[in-house]
């Protein structure tokens, strides 16, 4: 066995340029697919992170049944120390209590129906960057009596900062909730659905309004590493009251999961094209090499070399070339991917403006999951290996005489 290996090794070094050519085609294939995968999954990460931080958070603590009913009747009382416990829980970076319901917003003779959210102004801003959206007036603080109202809604009701509107709703346990409130600030949202509807109150104010002292409908949680969401979910849910549940963003935002799946399905096609191109590239190189070596193979066979042994030697060569190419590709792609993972690519121009208007950082993230490296490397390695088996096919059909006569081993 050692001799076969030695034989293959010498064959490879006999024509360095040929070996280098084959190896580099595999090297670039690995580099390309790894980078493409890193960008693609990076985009998925961006979609998820943006959607999650603008709306639900990675996880939410809710009363059992709240998510299906969305009613104040399914709100829960925040017991002393619960927020502190959650905030100091490993991996949790932020815990954002909210009380959400709907109310009629009335000014003059106009009345609209709006989602009303009671927020802890400081925490909400850290999570969603709400303060940046103020276009007129000022943001809330804990003791604010005023409300924030979305721009589109303000326009429809012909409102501006300082005007008083009436909020009318049904509070906790059917109590009538009606109050006159002054507008503290006007918010602009790029999403029309939000821009035409949203109303925010400070959490204490909202709790008084809804007759729901100390109650919230959810506590949204952010974690430091999105990949650890499920782990945090299972360990934290054991610490919660049995009446409460912890649900993750995938359950709350199925449309985001679908968007990510759609993106992945689209890139699967791109990957497919990539793999075909790579396969033909490698195959072309190997075929050229084989044709070049027909005379050599013919000579060896006429000298009495068993075809089986020749198979073994050429297979070993193929494995070596593929392995070296794949490992080199991997070795180069790792630092490149990690560099861009830590220094995300900044987008510029109109696209950047579009990102910013949605409250997103204008960056393209690069995913650096270990699985991405080995899966792409293994796929390309296998493709290369299959393409490199072409010589076996040639050797089997080879007729030494015609090969030696330089007729490509054909009859």
């Amino acid at each position, binding site marked *: 066995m050692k001799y076969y290996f030695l034989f293959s090794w010498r064959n490879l070094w006999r024509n360095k340029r040929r070996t280098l050519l084959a190896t580099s085609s595999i090297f670039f294939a690995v580099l390309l697919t790894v980078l493409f995968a890193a960008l693609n999954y990076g985009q998925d990460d961006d979609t998820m992170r943006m959607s999650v931080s603008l709306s639900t958070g990675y996880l939410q603590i809710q009363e059992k049944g709240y998510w299906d009913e969305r009613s104040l009747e399914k709100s829960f009382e925040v017991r002393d120390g619960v927020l502190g416990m959650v905030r100091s829980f490993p991996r949790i970076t932020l815990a954002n209590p909210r009380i959400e319901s709907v109310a009629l917003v009335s000014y003059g003779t106009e009345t609209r129906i709006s989602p009303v959210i009671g927020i802890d102004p400081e925490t909400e801003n850290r999570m969603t960057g709400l303060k940046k959206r103020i276009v007129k007036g000022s943001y809330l603080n804990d003791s604010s009596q005023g409300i924030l109202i979305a721009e589109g809604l303000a326009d429809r009701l012909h409102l501006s900062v300082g005007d008083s509107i009436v909020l009318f709703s049904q509070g906790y346990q059917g109590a009538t909730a*009606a109050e006159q409130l002054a507008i503290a600030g006007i918010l602009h949202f790029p999403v029309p659905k939000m821009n035409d509807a949203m109303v925010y109150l400070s959490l204490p104010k909202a709790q008084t309004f809804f007759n729901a002292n100390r109650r919230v409908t959810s506590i949204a949680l952010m974690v430091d590493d999105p990949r650890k969401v499920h782990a945090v979910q299972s360990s934290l849910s054991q610490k919660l009251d049995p009446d409460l549940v912890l649900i993750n963003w995938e359950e709350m935002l199925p449309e985001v999961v679908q968007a990510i799946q759609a993106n992945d399905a689209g890139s699967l096609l791109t990957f497919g094209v990539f793999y075909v191109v790579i396969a033909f590239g490698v195959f072309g190189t190997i075929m050229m090499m084989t044709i070049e070596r027909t005379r050599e193979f013919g000579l060896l066979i006429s000298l009495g070399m068993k075809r089986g042994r020749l198979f073994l030697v050429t297979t070993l060569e193929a494995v070596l070339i593929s392995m070296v190419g794949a490992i080199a590709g991997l070795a180069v792609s790792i630092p490149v991917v990690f560099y861009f993972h830590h220094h995300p690519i900044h987008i510029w121009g109109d696209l950047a403006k579009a990102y910013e208007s949605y409250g997103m950082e204008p960056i393209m993230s690069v995913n650096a999951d270990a699985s991405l490296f080995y899966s792409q490397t293994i796929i390309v390695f296998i493709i290369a290996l299959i393409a490199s088996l072409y010589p076996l096919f040639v050797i089997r059909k080879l007729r030494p005489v015609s090969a030696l006569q330089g007729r490509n081993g054909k009859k």
Partner: protein
Amino acid sequence: MIMKTLTLLTTILTVFSNFVYAQNAKEILQKAIDLMYGKKTYSVITMTITKPAWSRTVSMKAWSIEPDYSIVYITEPARDKGSVTLKRKNEVWNWLPSVQKTIKIPPSMMLAAWMGSDFTNDDLVRQSSIVNDYRHSLLGKESFGGYECYKIELVPKPEAGVVWGKIITWITEKGYMQLKEEFYDEDGVLVRTMLGSKPKMFDGHLLPSYSEMIPHDKPGNKTSFETKELDFDVNISPEFFSIQNMSRIR
């Protein structure tokens, strides 16, 4: 031959008797409706809302001219005292004393619960008439709550804009009181039951003084009404049910 004739005869008889029954069923319903229809009433009612985790009692005074006009003034609990709901044809208005404002309930809120009860705003104003929008058939007679009752099935006419797939109602033979109503959806599933009981003489009219609504899709929920006082022929006209009057009544 004889068999054939007999079959034919039976068929004719069945169709005919159905026709007669249908007439009867409609008349019975009409009589039940007429107990309240067009009457100018004043009432004092206590509503109890029961939910799995809590219950709440709301007391109110109500003026109405069935079926188009009513005005409800909340007297209890203290937090809601003075709130007024006005129903005028298919519109619902609210007077909010704490902010001195009248709000018309927009269409998008019509399916929201009224005062936290199992009734929606839409239930208050639904215009469908159980006499005109349904085909009626008398299913037979049945004893219910100690009364001999007609059991009538109502199936909506195709052109009627009705949310129910079917209604079955029990009306007493004497006095035409509606003691039970079962509401089924299009799939034939029982969605809610209305029950009437404890008949009392109110101003010369015998009517159930206690009624409850049980929504079957929400286990543990119930809304009941107890009529404490009911006067007929009070001195009101449709003009009484005005937006301006909401803030004046006591």
